[in-house]
């Protein structure tokens, strides 16, 4: 009884694992571009969050005017750079 059970389980598992190989199932998505775009998107989101946070800190009095100017300028430059990269990636996808 136990042996039959083990055999059935084994066969089912082999079928489960081998299925993609038999059907030559492909990943639905292209690997690289999608991840690159997501990475840039996430980094851009973080950069935008940072801009917002810097602004809040300035308003709250945590940052002096000149510190704010410097930080804000650099962070915005980074965001612009990230947006450019995002657009390049989006462009490269189209044939």
């Amino acid at each position, binding site marked *: 009884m*136990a042996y039959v059970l083990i055999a059935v389980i084994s066969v089912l598992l082999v079928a489960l694992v081998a299925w993609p190989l038999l059907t030559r199932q492909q990943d639905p998505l292209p690997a690289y571009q999608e991840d690159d775009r997501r990475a840039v998107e996430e980094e851009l989101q973080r950069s935008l969050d940072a801009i917002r946070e810097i602004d809040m800190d300035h308003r709250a009095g945590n940052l002096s005017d000149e510190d704010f100017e410097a930080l804000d300028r650099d962070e915005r430059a980074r965001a612009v750079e990230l947006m450019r990269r995002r657009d390049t990636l989006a462009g490269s996808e189209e044939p």
Partner: protein
Amino acid sequence: MTLVGRAALLLAFAAAIYAVVAALWSRRTGRREFLASAERGVWAVFITTTTSVFIMWGLLLGNRFDVADVAGYSNLTLGWRYKITALWGSQAGSLLLWMWLLSIAAVLVVVTNRRRNRDLMPVVVAVLMGVAAFFTSVLSFITSPFATVSPVPADGRGLNPLLQNAYMESHPPMLYIGYVGLSVPFAFAIAALVTRRLDSTWITSVRRWTILSWIFLTIGIVLGSRWAYEELGWGGYWAWDPVENAALMPWLVATAFLHSVMVQERRGMLRIWNMVLVILTFTLALFGTFLTRSGILSSVHAFGESTLGPYFLGLIIVILVGSFALLFTRLPALRSQNSLESYISREAIFLYNNLLLVGLAFAVFWGTMFPVLSEAVQGEKITVGQGFFNQVTAPIGLALLFFTGVGPLISWRKASARELRRRFAAPLVVAVIAIIPAVYLAQDGAHWWAAAAIVLGAFTVTCIVGEYWRGMKVRHQLGGVSWPGAFGQLFVRNRRRFGGYVVHLGVVSIIVAIACQGAFSSQGDLALRTGQTGEVAGYQFTNDGGTRSKDDHKMSVGVKLGVSEGGNRFATLEPGVDVFLAQQQRSSEVAVDSSPFRDVYVVLVGLTPDGLARISVFVNPMMMWIWIGGVIMVVGSLIAVWPSRRPRGAAAPSVVGADDRVPE
């Protein structure tokens, strides 16, 4: 069924090996159907491991005493809840739990990365399944949970009474979830190194898994201390036992990582350091499992000497050498463009905090391993007393407390002196005021570090409250929201930051409570006949009479104690002792009267037939704030990780125009 259980574990082993091979093959050849097959292999490992776990539970619930672990850790009279718990009472069972959790984590990784990180996944699957192959091979060939005994005993030996309580039901699984969860960040880090995709792709997955594991580790550690406090009956909660240290070390390094990863996100720095931290965290998690299981160190709850030590040590060495060799070859790609501009900046504070946390983890490691090292070097086993740990932890903990307050108030890159003065004015005033009671409590400097903890705690709390206050003020003025609304908005708009501050408040609570308990607790023993009254630390205890009872499992004695202070009776405590008949094991039932400022903790040592009760009394100041602090930390970290509902792209600040700054 034991045969099916063994077979399921063997199949899990085979599936794990197959998944490693197929995943690596798919990476080598680029044939994606092999990756799909490898991911199904992960499912196969999950299904087979789950099968064997449920078979084990079936055997425990069915009182199948022909199985060694059932006979050794359960018996006929054990309640069904503890029969479930008995799974992780035995060595093989606890490794089976580890493996099961790992298979669950691996399946979660496969499911959540169906459409992302596709080029990392082959390596991620290979690493996770490599670890799974190790555990399934140990479970199949070295210590099987399905080992049988003959002749079959009529009844089992039962579960250790010390383990029969709600803390022990939940504490080991919590720690194990934490340990196992840390394998996922490790797998992603290795995948990023192997594929050279070292941009921020892997960071998001890694951070989320680390913080979730961190939460479970925190819960596990706090529950473990609480168990020690309520069940072991020595008035304390932490003894720097190797097994406690084993959980603390990965927790400390994971905490360091969660801070330094922010520097990487914001400034692109510390990328090598973060890799090192991820690798160390997982290694320490494995090391924790190893310490508990190997028996190389005598511990309050080591599981006896076993044959597992060399295998675990081998795995740890392979992982450490392999990861660091890989990291070394990728160093050029990890160099950062930015460098530290000022020693008084947010990133610098994070760096200090990291050095302190990792330094503390190292000191704990050193103290824990000292007996082993000294035996290897000098041939004499020399242990390190608790004094060492306390002495090292006190200054480092205080410095961490200081940076917890200072860090959030210092801006990125550099802070100007004028701003610093302005921002730290209020916290400094509060700290100076706090010096007065602290000096009074310090008693000629004998308890200087408790006094310092109080002063720094007040300072840090003021810093954090100031942050909330300034944030709320801006929201209130900007949006015209009510004050409570502004408070709520802080958490909605910036969960990570303000949730993180909640965690910090919990940390302050815990550190101050630990310092006060350590410095100002008092202890006394009393021997009281019925009707007699004795005094410890200003509290009077009256023996109101003893009780005795006996049932099938245990013999219990107890005593009624009236507790009063200055003639005002405020509590009746009933400490007792159970003697479990099956194991001839004593178990103290301590009685505690908790209040925000102190715990009165009473242990019944013995009750003679003529009514003389011997009791030990501990008065622990501020104890409650350790548990409250733990709850605050968990709540805060849940706030911080809760997925934000921000609609994509909405309310993004305009990047180019400088005139319309964040009208939210």
